[in-house]
């Protein structure tokens, strides 16, 4: 099944597993900005109509099986954008297929065993893997990292605060989506719904910032969730500590038109604040501010966001230059996120989560506990 013209040998070929809204609204627009180095050559989706439609818009081949995409010799880089439960097996298969680099959307595994298996295969095959934690590739973040000096050693408080409209608000300004699935609403006072919202919030939304949080928490393995609560219609308030670092996570996906995505790391006499641009739309990089008493250093904004940064990094890696994040880093990022998600949801079982003291009007409004939050 092909509609693609002769592949250009000067370009690196991209194959994408899963052609849902993330692929359509995030990766294809980012790749369209990098046509001088990358070319989409193969799109796979289990829905043949979606696969054909999405492949057709970029002139790529399409298929409905992972094996067919991995067997395509025109594909140098594989991006895994399938549902979470398939990530680990597909990363491993892509490595074994001898591809030059692999991008796995977060989370790259659902448990520590899967993460260890991926690490082993990556080491064995030498195929570099990066995980789609886009903020770690944002030029604003990277500029801050170069400039912050000894900030990580003194940070005692970290805040991640996210206010976003529901994803379609941005998807529809990034592309024209096909195959969008509407999710059923559910009762946000039900414990299982609350657990799913907390887990989904951490693994789908907070996870973008958790690698950043971990940069300031040397004792990340010593994480303790102290408070977890949902925000309606979707969001969370989670308080935790890791070692001596206080971590506060806030998120609300409401119907606002004004997004705000802020990350702060605060020490006794220096502080970092980063304002990230919303996902999906190509709105440039974050702007970082490093403050000390009486002095503010502003870094950015730069012309591209973290998603484009991911692809630039992949092109480097596939071309044999650049250093991928270590497998240990990826595993620790995952373990950190999983620990927080499990502990937050676990507070529901122990009755330590507010199960919703709301008036009837609010309770009846419903929510979508596992809505797409791959912002």
């Amino acid at each position, binding site marked *: 099944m092909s509609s693609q013209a002769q592949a250009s040998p000067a370009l690196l070929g991209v194959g994408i597993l899963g052609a849902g809204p993330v692929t359509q609204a995030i990766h294809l627009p980012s790749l369209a900005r990098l046509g001088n180095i990358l070319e989409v050559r193969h799109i796979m989706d289990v829905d043949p109509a979606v696969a054909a439609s999405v492949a057709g818009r970029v002139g790529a081949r399409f298929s409905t099986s992972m094996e067919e995409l991995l067997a395509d010799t025109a594909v140098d880089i594989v991006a895994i954008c399938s549902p979470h439960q398939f990530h680990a097996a597909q990363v491993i298969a892509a490595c074994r297929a001898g591809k030059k680099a692999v991008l796995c959307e977060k989370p790259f595994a659902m448990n520590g065993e899967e993460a260890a298996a991926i690490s082993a295969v990556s080491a064995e095959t030498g195929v570099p893997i990066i995980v789609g934690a886009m903020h770690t590739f944002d030029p604003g973040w990277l500029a801050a990292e170069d400039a912050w000096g000894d900030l990580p050693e003194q940070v005692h408080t970290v805040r991640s605060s996210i206010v976003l409209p529901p994803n379609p608000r941005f998807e529809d300004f990034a592309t024209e989506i096909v195959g969008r699935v509407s999710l059923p609403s559910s009762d946000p006072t039900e414990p299982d719904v609350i657990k799913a919202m907390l887990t989904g919030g951490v693994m789908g939304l907070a996870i973008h910032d958790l690698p950043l949080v971990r940069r300031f928490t040397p004792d990340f393995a010593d994480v303790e969730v102290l408070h977890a609560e949902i925000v309606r219609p979707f969001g969370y308030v989670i308080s935790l500590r890791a070692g001596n670092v206080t971590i506060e996570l806030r998120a609300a996906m409401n119907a*606002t038109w004004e997004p705000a995505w802020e990350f702060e790391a605060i020490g006794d006499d220096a502080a970092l604040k980063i304002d990230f641009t919303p996902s999906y739309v190509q709105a440039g990089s974050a702007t970082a501010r490093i403050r000390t008493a009486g002095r503010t250093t502003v870094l950015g904004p730069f012309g591209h966001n973290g998603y484009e940064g991911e692809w630039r990094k992949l092109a480097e890696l596939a071309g044999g230059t650049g250093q991928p994040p270590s497998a240990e880093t990826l595993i620790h990022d995952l373990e950190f996120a999983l620990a927080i998600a499990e502990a937050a949801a676990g507070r529901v079982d122990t009755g330590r989560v507010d199960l919703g003291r709301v008036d009837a009007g609010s309770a009846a409004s419903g929510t979508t506990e596992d809505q797409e939050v791959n912002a």
Partner: protein
Amino acid sequence: MTTQLSVYADPQAEAAGAVSAVVASLPLSFAPAGPAAPAASVPAASAPDITAVSGHAGWTERAAAAVRKGAKGIVVSGPVAEDPAALIGVAEAAGSVVVLDQPWAGNLALAGSSENVHGVIAAALEDAVLLDSVAIGVPGTDPRDLLTEQFSVLVQCGIAVQNVRMVQRNANGYTVAGVLASGAPVALQGILTSALPATASVSILTSTGRADVVLPDPAAAWPAVVRAVTKEGATALPTLYESSHRTSWSRVHSHLSSGIPATDLAQFSTVLSLVSQLTS
């Protein structure tokens, strides 16, 4: 014609409330009481009209002593959590006015006369999905004092927080959880750092937007920032370049001139109740 009132501040009160600078900025309303004599030793007949009191521990007793010595007005700068019940009785009996000069709650943006600000806050509260507030203090600040100031802001905003619970507290700050009457979560955080200005923010997220109030350090006349986001757009309310210290002194003069009693101490009782739930 403005009645000029005499002012006395001991060194601690002067340091806590920048009294000299503030009085100098209201030259028709106030004048120094002349060569300073300790309030406790000033005979009632020659007592200054207004006595400034530092809000460190024991302020209620010091303020009551100044009232007994004849002060018509008391301005307490930075009051820490302390039961004002006895002081209320002393002040009422003497017909004296007690004004609390609080760094953030005392900002003119939150004065009762700032109807536009209170309107923005009230509208957001009707549709709130989350209230998130952050208070910044300098390292070394007692977290309980910072929490007192933060609760004072909420009370001054007309925000009733229920079921407050201390989530964590350490030398670098604290986190408090609570709930609004509607059931929406409340998250309060205090952070100690010298890298950031000593501000307090209140953000009320709604189903379609938000309201934000950022209150400045009264060390200078930085304006508060009040902003509302609704479906119709974003609105920044007019800015007011006056420190909370100056606002407090204007208020005490206004209360004494008009004869309208101040409600600061009664309101502080509400604050104390919230603080006591967390620290008792």
